[in-house]
């Protein structure tokens, strides 16, 4: 069986400064994986380079053996919330419907079928009472869920999420992680850029530790340990005491 995602020798740079260096990473199908690392480690860049939003200097990425250009429909991307202007004149249902644009092709507008699907996605993320709301009138957590609903609308096999828990309250975080776990149990592959080390063990089954280079990756139980964290975060972080790491899992 083909792995969901294969990354070979991926290197990316802003101007002259390398942000990702020679990443080799294989992600099996049906996992919920966190990408962690310090600020500036290239976590978001990794997702963007995988999708060609940033053109890599070198390397290839395969989704179920296809390049992204060959089969875009396999992958849904959830950008950081801060990447758009939330005062844009549009409503929740409208944004979610954008998830269907990719498969509609030229000149076609979303129709009844897409609308029904959008309602289902909105229902799933718990925003059904906000369907017609202008998006600036939503809280940060609700905005994040709008993006998630748009991704669900894409009917993808692989989901790449950039910091979906940034600036959301605990309740929203729980409901988002529940949706992601549901996706995993449907056999989808989910990769999440994450910054909260406390929750890695309870949320994810796999983890990649990144600091420009890939420091470690694998099952959380195997690679999420003080030695690897130290290598990834260097002196910038105080490691938790051993005992705390062990008692974290819920």
């Amino acid at each position: 069986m083909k792995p969901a995602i294969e990354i070979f020798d991926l290197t990316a740079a802003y101007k002259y400064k390398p942000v990702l260096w020679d990443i080799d990473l294989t992600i099996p199908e049906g996992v919920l994986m966190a990408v962690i690392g310090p600020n500036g480690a290239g976590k978001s860049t990794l997702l963007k380079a995988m999708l060609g939003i940033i053109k890599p200097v070198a390397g290839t990425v395969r989704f179920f053996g296809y390049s992204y250009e060959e089969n875009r429909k396999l992958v849904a991307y959830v950008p950081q919330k801060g990447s758009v202007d939330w005062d844009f004149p549009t409503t929740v249902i409208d944004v979610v419907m954008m998830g269907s644009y990719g498969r509609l092709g030229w000149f076609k507008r979303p129709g009844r079928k897409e609308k029904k699907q959008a309602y289902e996605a909105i229902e799933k993320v718990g925003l059904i009472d906000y369907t017609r709301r202008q998006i600036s009138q939503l809280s940060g957590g609700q905005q994040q869920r709008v993006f998630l609903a748009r991704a669900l609308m894409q009917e993808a096999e692989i989901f790449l999420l950039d910091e979906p828990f940034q600036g959301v309250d605990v309740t929203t975080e729980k409901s988002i992680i529940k949706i992601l776990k549901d996706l995993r149990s449907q056999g989808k592959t989910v990769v999440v850029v994450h910054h909260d080390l406390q929750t890695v063990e309870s949320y994810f089954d796999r983890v990649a530790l990144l600091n420009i280079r890939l420091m470690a990756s694998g099952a959380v139980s195997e690679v999420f340990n003080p030695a690897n964290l130290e290598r990834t975060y260097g002196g910038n972080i105080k490691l938790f005491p051993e005992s705390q790491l062990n008692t974290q899992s819920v």
Partner: protein
Amino acid sequence: MENAITEFFTNHTFLIIAAGTSILGIVSGMLGSFAMLRRQSLFGDAISHAALPGIVLAFLISGSRDSLWLLSGAAIFGWLATLFILSVVNNTRIKSDSALGIALSVFFGFGIVLLTYVQKIPDSQQAGLDRFIFGQAATLVKRDVIIMSVVGVVILICMLLFWKEFKIMAFDPDFAATIGVKTRFFNVFLTSMIVAAIVIGLQAVGVVLMSAMLIAPAAAARQWTNKLGMMVFLSALFGVISGVGGSAISSLGTRISTGPSIILTAVLIGAISFVLAPERGLMVKWIRDYQNRYKLELQKILDDMLEISLQHGEPYHPHSLAILNHTRGFNKKRILDLVNYGYIELVQGNEWKFTLKGYQKAQESTTSNKFEL
């Protein structure tokens, strides 16, 4: 007088001008919405100023004052300015706002130099190139209007065909790229249409003020709706009203240049929208803020009164008004309002005591933190 006005509006020249400025209004209104949402407002200003040297050079090269020639020159220079700005931003440490400033002044300065040079050439005065600075709708002829409508119709069709791509490009370009929208192509496409919209407005509005024609109707339209389609429609409508209204004011013997009177009409619509629009308007915001503030003040005074009377142990015992004054800031008007609402009574003019209703209200407000009058 009435006759004169009727005659004016059925006048052939005015109909041409009205048609021209309507098309201009529609096109700049529609594309202005996208320019504004994509934060390209200043960019429009740079492009329109940069069109001036293009116009004069086109005249020098072709020797013709035909507007098709002149506007082609304007479009080419609009594009040159765009490329100039992009290369400055990409290759130097200069930020985009400075790059826009540089492009605007360099190109416009060059245009003025060329213009003064041209005006010294014998027989070139009649070309009337200086009308492109502030705009003169009266110089529009039937052929200009035909050119404008062709460009307008092409833009309208593109807009309808690629609506979903333009929308997603404006809202979330990164996401657009991931679902396979050719972002590079659509960037160039949208920018070209903005250049085209600017160019067809130059004759009536002029290079100096044209960017306002992109932005004012769009900003006004944004106030009234939360839907992109409606915003683009309203923006086009406001554009038409400004175009026709402005040129009417200017043609009615006021001797104001068309450009400024069109822009002032657009700005007037904008000002009205900013103040009066429901939801986003300033008026609604002022009223809402005032009401909330007022309620909050009453709630706070009731709260303090409850605290004082609880200290005393007996809720309906009168207390001196001066107590409220010492540490809590005493607002006599608000206290009289509380009397009017029947929450407190005044005793001998310098003491207050709770009414039953007021005491209940105060308790309710402290326990639930909700307060309605």
